[in-house]
């Protein structure tokens, strides 16, 4: 047995490399039909497979890096986009809401084709708050999202806060009368008025101001207190009779315009 093994080792070329049988000086195995001379060593195929796999993966990596994330209109996002990384640009139409339990931030954006919900969870939400990247109403954002469609509902997820860019449009100086009479919304504005009442709700604070003719509500969502906890003292100070200037986004609430400041710092008391 040992001798046969030694023979095979020494007279390697006398044995068929495919079936291992003794074939002598033949160039083709009479048993399995394998060619003896023109053969490719398995080792080379193995090395080739490894090289191809490594080059292939890095090729895909470079290819992925090279192609930009496509910019998509909101109306074009449908179920087939599920999990696709996409770039969407649009105006924020609802002030971000913060859910402490799930540590998530939710807001809505719109472009010329439609509206969609945006969400940031846990780490991304914490990072947004840390970086102060909380968009205000009517801010223009440009972000890379992951599209998600769950049970028929479509929304966008902020995965990396660094890829959220917030542009703050120049606010327009408007009077309350102009806003109410022309029903102006979807705009950044600076408005002046005298406080008539301050009400607190479970979802936020309503500060009513007047220019003598009409009233406008300054809406401070409760989530703003979570995002900008250092500036809450303004809410303790405001009282009827005070004159304030507020900068924020105008939006429609139950048929009437209201102004939502980007943060509590955007409410300034000018006359106590």
């Amino acid at each position, binding site marked *: 047995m040992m001798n046969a093994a030694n023979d095979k080792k020494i007279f390697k070329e006398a044995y068929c490399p495919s079936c291992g049988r003794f074939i002598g000086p033949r160039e083709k195995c009479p048993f399995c039909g394998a060619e003896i001379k023109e053969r490719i060593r398995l080792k080379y195929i193995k090395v080739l497979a490894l090289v191809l796999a490594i080059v292939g993966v890095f090729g895909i*990596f470079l*290819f992925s890096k090279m192609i930009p994330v496509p910019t*998509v209109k909101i109306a074009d996002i449908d179920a087939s986009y599920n999990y696709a990384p996409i770039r969407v640009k649009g105006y924020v139409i609802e002030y971000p809401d913060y859910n402490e339990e799930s540590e998530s931030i939710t807001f809505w954006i719109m472009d010329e084709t439609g509206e969609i919900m945006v969400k940031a969870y846990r780490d991304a939400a914490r990072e947004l708050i840390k970086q102060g990247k909380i968009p205000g109403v009517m801010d223009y954002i440009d972000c*890379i999202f992951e599209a998600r469609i769950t049970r028929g509902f479509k929304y966008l997820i902020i*995965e990396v806060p660094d890829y959220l860019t917030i542009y703050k449009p120049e606010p327009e100086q408007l009077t309350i009368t102009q806003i109410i009479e022309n029903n102006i919304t979807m705009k950044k504005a600076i408005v002046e008025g005298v406080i008539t009442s301050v009400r607190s709700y479970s979802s936020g604070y309503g500060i009513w101001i007047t220019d003598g003719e009409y009233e406008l509500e300054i809406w401070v969502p409760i989530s703003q207190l979570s995002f900008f906890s250092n500036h809450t003292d303004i809410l303790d100070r405001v009282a009827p009779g005070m004159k304030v200037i507020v900068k924020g986004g105008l939006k429609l609430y139950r048929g009437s315009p209201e102004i939502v400041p980007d943060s509590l710092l955007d409410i300034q008391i000018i006359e106590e």
Partner: protein
Amino acid sequence: MDVVLLVLVALAGVIIAAFSCFIPGLHIYNLIAIIVLLHLSGAVYIDPEIMCFLFIGMIVGYSFFNVITSVFMSAPDESLMFFIFPAQRYFLEGRGFEASMLIGVGSLVAVMFLAASVPFLPILLPRIWELTRPLLGWLILLVIVFILLTEWPRGLERSESRWERFKEAWSSPLAGFLTFALAGFFGIILFFKPPIPPERGFVAITPAFIGIFALPWAITNVLSKFPKVEQHITDSINVKVHEIIRGGGAGFLAGMFGAFFPAITAGVAGFLAGHATAQKGDRLFIISQGASRAIYYMGAFLLFFLPTMHITRGALAWMTGLVFTPERVEYYYLAAFTMLLCAGVSFLLLTPITKLAIKLVHRYGIRTLSIFSIISCIAIVLVLTSWEGLLIMAVGAVIGMIPLLFNCRRSNTLAVILVPLGLNIIGLGPTIAELLGLFG
């Protein structure tokens, strides 16, 4: 909700699945993705409720009939990779029919376990989820460690030099670790920046799966010489009742484990359950793995209908969720009973379908069927994605070939899903993708 119509549609799904099994390497998910794509693109309109029940029939049928392609045509999917060798041994011994029946029996018993658990799942699963959710990252990490630890140095230690012996022993595990690393990196790229059009985002990982799990076998089949083994058709199977119950029970636990926890596939779950329940012998192994994969596919889809928690597990649930929302409790019970019915019908059909497969393999040969399989894989990827998808599939195929060439564990290729999902669960996924410069 027309119950009779929905059940009939589900049975039609079983028939579709039965015929799809004659194309080696064709995963039912690919067929379902094409149906969803046609529906979403507006090319074909199918009522979402009907589509959902068609998918129930297709997935139940697939979980029974796919054993045929795996046993007789050597083309397992990712859930079958662990038990293909014992089943292939049966095939080479002319006992392929018996192997097919063993897997079928295991699946059927596991479905009975599933049926018995239907009333309890809505109560139990939310509690289990509550308890295990914070530990998911660890769970996946442990599965990864388990996969890596199953590699061991191999070799006969007969080479003369120490270096030769070292090389011989470590080439397999090192190739395994390299496969894991490449598949994991590949998965990260595909999860965070798949180089395919965004309107095909829902099937971004499909070309990689086809490449890694279907193509290597088909290529190997084309290159290999297969002995023509006469298959013996038997009217009894060599198994004991307690083995069926034990294998089916272990398979049920494994299948539910895989179905419930993200990133754990049936193969890994079945392998873990096999260790946990101390299985020994090919028969028990084949039964439990068959049961595990059946429950993995069916259980994951049943969770989609669970009224007490919104949970989406497995590609089928994700794809169905794009078009249909089960808003009523009745859907859960109807889906469960439809699955039970489809499982019974599938088992009855398993005998004639297996016989037909034996005839087909005998007539055309595995090589011809595999060439057809490669062509259909390319066509599917092209239809579902684009030419970029073919590129991804090709890279996946080369990664999938490494374990076959180096005789290391194929489970390493599961890193394509385990690594990115694991990273996402522990919250590091986007950070790593950003570090790699995949965003932007």
